[in-house]
């Protein structure tokens, strides 16, 4: 019951999705569409599970007065704030005339998205630039041919994407400046390497998917 039913579900759903690729007709196309909706609905509950778990952990931290419980309060407040606006304005928008979406410009949800969420996510990702650069400064050493190739390619791509690269190599003929070399690296050796990786991933994905559908791979069910 705990293992057999999930394995049966995986098999049936996996086969339906795989077969519907080859037979895009009834009943498979209908099943694919219905299961597509199921996928979205279950994904919504999965997101809810994650959010509720976050709340549960934060509340426990506050209850225990853990050292950093102040941050848990911030997590809960910011979560509730955007959820309130999202539900309230979403509900209001359905019954308004004309209807509007909770995401439309001028809504509280959009305001939080624009000034809080976007600012924080962009800065958070931007911060990685410094860490990647400092890590590479320590790790990048031209010890052998392979490491040197990596270093040179990264150097050309980075300098080819900024004006100083072309300024320094402006005396070279057209197409041989830093940006020209960067474009060539991106479109020739990089394409070759990416294709090899993509084909490798696709083959690996097919074999792993088959193992999952046939019930040979069961690690997703956990240890019990």
């Amino acid at each position: 019951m705990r293992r057999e039913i999930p394995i049966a579900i995986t098999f049936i759903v996996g086969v339906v999705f795989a077969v519907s690729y080859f037979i895009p007709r009834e009943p498979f196309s209908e099943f694919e569409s219905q299961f597509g909706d199921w996928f979205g609905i279950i994904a919504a509950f999965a997101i809810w599970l994650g959010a509720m778990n976050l709340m549960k952990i934060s509340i426990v931290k506050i209850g225990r007065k853990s050292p950093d419980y102040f941050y848990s309060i911030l997590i809960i407040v910011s979560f509730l704030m955007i959820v309130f606006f999202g539900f309230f304005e979403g509900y209001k928008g359905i019954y308004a005339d004309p209807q509007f979406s909770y995401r439309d410009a001028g809504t509280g949800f959009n305001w939080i998205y624009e000034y809080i969420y976007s600012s924080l996510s962009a800065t958070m990702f931007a911060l990685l630039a410094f860490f990647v650069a400092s890590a590479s400064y320590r790790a990048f050493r031209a010890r052998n041919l392979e490491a040197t190739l990596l270093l040179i390619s990264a150097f050309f791509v980075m300098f080819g994407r900024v004006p100083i690269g072309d300024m320094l190599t402006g005396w070279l003929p057209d197409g041989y400046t830093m940006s020209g070399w960067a474009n060539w690296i991106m479109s020739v050796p990089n394409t070759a390497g990416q294709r090899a990786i993509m084909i490798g991933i696709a083959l690996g994905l097919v074999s792993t998917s088959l193992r999952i559908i046939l019930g040979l791979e069961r690690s997703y069910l956990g240890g019990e």
Partner: protein
Amino acid sequence: MEQFGIWLAALLTIGIISFLYKDNILYKACEAIFVGVSAGYWFVTYFWDNLYRKFYLGIQGAELSDQIFLWMAVALGVMMLTRLFDKIGWLSRWPLAFIIGATAGLYMMTYFVSNAFVQIGATITPPPSMETIGDKISFVLIAIGTFCGLIYFFFSKEHKGAFGGAAKVGIWFLMVTFGASFGYTVMSRMSLMLGRFDFLFGEWLGLIK
């Protein structure tokens, strides 16, 4: 309200950047806000896009069989939430099995076509715009690089002799790819950082017109 938003965004941006100096209260506070807002954002978005649109609107006026089908999806979704309770947590395996099965079945074919067939086709089919000698050399280089890269990933035969040589060439192409990906990632992050500085010095302080 817009001005307040700009000031708040500037404060949050500085709070995150302050981590470059050292871990501090302002950064941790901004991080906590980011975690809460992100979770809430997806919580709301998935509710309206999937639960409301696909389920609630889906059952309106639908045939009984379709309604039952949608209710079954909700039942599976609710089972997902049982993971929060230790005793009945095993029930969450059913919806998880559905997600895993659907992903495996769907991606098995779509990825195979888009990532294997299409890429192999593009590697062995000369493009119609191949006019100069440079284009022809590039086409041959891509074909050699892809083939040698694949040989490197083939572990069922020992990398020795001509096979090992080809695998070595494959490594060179892969190293150039990793370097290019690294450079590209750094520059995209730099571009984001420039965007944030542009916001701070332009929209917030008004120093950049």
